[in-house]
C-alpha cells in the first residue's frame, strides 16, 4: 500500500457547475467538496454568519476569499497565515493550496447550513463547530515602557521597515520621517505618488495635532483612495494611523475624545471614494478593530523589547505586497504623534 497523500488526490476535482456554463465540465463529474475547518471567526464576521444566507463571493485570491454580505459589507475566508481579524474567518487551508484552485468563483452563493459555511454548489464547506470567536484585543498586556524606550522601539520599527519593507510606494517616506521634517522632503527623490501624497499627509498630521476637524476631513479626502494597490497605498497609511491613535489613546487614557473625532472625520469621507475592501478595513480601523499582527505591533512598541518589536514589524510588513509597509508608516506616524503630545504635556507614565 502506497503511503502517499491520497487526501490531496481527493482535492483534485473540478467544480460542479450548472449547465449554463458551457465552457466548464458538466455536473455528472464526480466531485466531492473540500472540507475545511474554521479555527476562529472575527466578531464582525460572526454576526454575518447568523443568517442562513451569508452573501456571495466577491473576489478570490490565493489565500483570501472575500464575501459580500447581504448588508453590503465584506467578510473574508482566509488561510491561517493571514491571521485573525474582525472580518476574518480563519481556516486550516493548507499553506500550499490556493483558494483560487479550489473552484470557488465570483458570485457563488455563500450559505450557512447546520453549523457549516457552504460556498458555491458543493465546492467548499467550512465547519465552524470548533471555531472560537475572535475579538480584537484592545488592552495591552505587559507594562508600559518609559517614553525613551518607546521612542527607541519606534526607531527599531523604522529601521526594520527600511531594511525589509516594500519601499516602492508611500513607505519611502518613513526613511525621512522625524519631527516636523515631512515638509523638508519636497526636494528629495520621491516617486510621483509619494510626491502627491506628501503635502496632504504633512498637513493632515498638523491638522490632527491642532484638532481642526474640518481641515482633517478635507485633507483626508485628498488621501483616501490614492495610490496603487487593491487597498490603495494611502488608505493603508490611514489604517495604520487610525489604529495606532485609537489603541494607544485607549490604553494610555489620553486624548480619547480627540482621537474619536479625528477618526470620524477621516471616515466621513471614504464612501465611494475607494474600493469596497479598503472601505471595510478603514471602518474597522476607525473603531480600533484591526487584524492581529497590527494590534501586536502597536502593543509591542509600547510594552516590549526591541527584538520583539522587530519580529512584530516583520509580521506586519509581510501583509499584502506593499500594504503592510504602508500600514507601518501609518502606525509610526500615529504613535509618534501621541508620544510627542504626551511629552509636551509632560505626562508621566
Amino acid at each position, binding site marked *: 500500500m502506497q503511503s502517499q497523500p491520497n487526501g*490531496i488526490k481527493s*482535492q*483534485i476535482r*473540478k467544480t460542479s457547475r450548472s449547465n449554463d456554463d458551457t465552457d*466548464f*465540465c*458538466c455536473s*455528472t*463529474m464526480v466531485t466531492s467538496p473540500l472540507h475545511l475547518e474554521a479555527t476562529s471567526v472575527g466578531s464582525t464576521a460572526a454576526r454575518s454568519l447568523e443568517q442562513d444566507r451569508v452573501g456571495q463571493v466577491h473576489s478570490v485570491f490565493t489565500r483570501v476569499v472575500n464575501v459580500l454580505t447581504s448588508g453590503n459589507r465584506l467578510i473574508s475566508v482566509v488561510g491561517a497565515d493571514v491571521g485573525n481579524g474582525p472580518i476574518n474567518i480563519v481556516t486550516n487551508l493548507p499553506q*500550499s*493550496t*490556493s483558494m483560487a*484552485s479550489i473552484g470557488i468563483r465570483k458570485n457563488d452563493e455563500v450559505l450557512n447550513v447546520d453549523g457549516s459555511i457552504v460556498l458555491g454548489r458543493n465546492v467548499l464547506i467550512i465547519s465552524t463547530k470548533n471555531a472560537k470567536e475572535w475579538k480584537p484585543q484592545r488592552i495591552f498586556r505587559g507594562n508600559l515602557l518609559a517614553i525613551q524606550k518607546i521612542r527607541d522601539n519606534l526607531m527599531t520599527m523604522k529601521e526594520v521597515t527600511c531594511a525589509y519593507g516594500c519601499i516602492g510606494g508611500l513607505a519611502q517616506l518613513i526613511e525621512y520621517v522625524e519631527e516636523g521634517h515631512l515638509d523638508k522632503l519636497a526636494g528629495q527623490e520621491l516617486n510621483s505618488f509619494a510626491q502627491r501624497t506628501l503635502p496632504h499627509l504633512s498637513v493632515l498630521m498638523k491638522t490632527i495635532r491642532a484638532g481642526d476637524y474640518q481641515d482633517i476631513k478635507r485633507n483626508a479626502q485628498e488621501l483616501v483612495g490614492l495610490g496603487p494597490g487593491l487597498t490603495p497605498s494611502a488608505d493603508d497609511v490611514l489604517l495604520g494611523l487610525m489604529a495606532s491613535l485609537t489603541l494607544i489613546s485607549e490604553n494610555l487614557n489620553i486624548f480619547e475624545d480627540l482621537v474619536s473625532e479625528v477618526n470620524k472625520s477621516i471616515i466621513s469621507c471614504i464612501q465611494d471614494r475607494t474600493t469596497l475592501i479598503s472601505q471595510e478595513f478603514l471602518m474597522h480601523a476607525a473603531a480600533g478593530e484591526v487584524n492581529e499582527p497590527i494590534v501586536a505591533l502597536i502593543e509591542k512598541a509600547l510594552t516590549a523589547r526591541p527584538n520583539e518589536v522587530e519580529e512584530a514589524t516583520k509580521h506586519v510588513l509581510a501583509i499584502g505586497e506593499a500594504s503592510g509597509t504602508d500600514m507601518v508608516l501609518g502606525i509610526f506616524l500615529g504613535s509618534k504623534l501621541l508620544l510627542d503630545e504626551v511629552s509636551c504635556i509632560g505626562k508621566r507614565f
Partner: protein
Amino acid sequence: MSKKENLLNKKLKVINIGIETFIEDLKKQGAEVVHVDWRPPAGGDIEILKLLDKLEEGVDSSKRNHSKRPTKKQ
C-alpha cells in the same frame, strides 16, 4: 534505451497536468514547466469517454500498423 537517455541527467522539461501546487516547486528547483489547465474531456461523461477512447484506439493502432513507431523524442 534512447528514450531514457533524454530524461536522466538532462534538464527537466515538464508538462504538468492537474494540480497547480506542483508547478512552483518544480520551477524553484530549476525545471521548466508548462501547465495544462485540464478539464475532463467529453464534459466529464464517462460513457462518452469510453466511446471516444475506443475510437482513438482504433485510429492509433491502424496508424501504428501503417507506419514506423512514432519518432522518438530526443
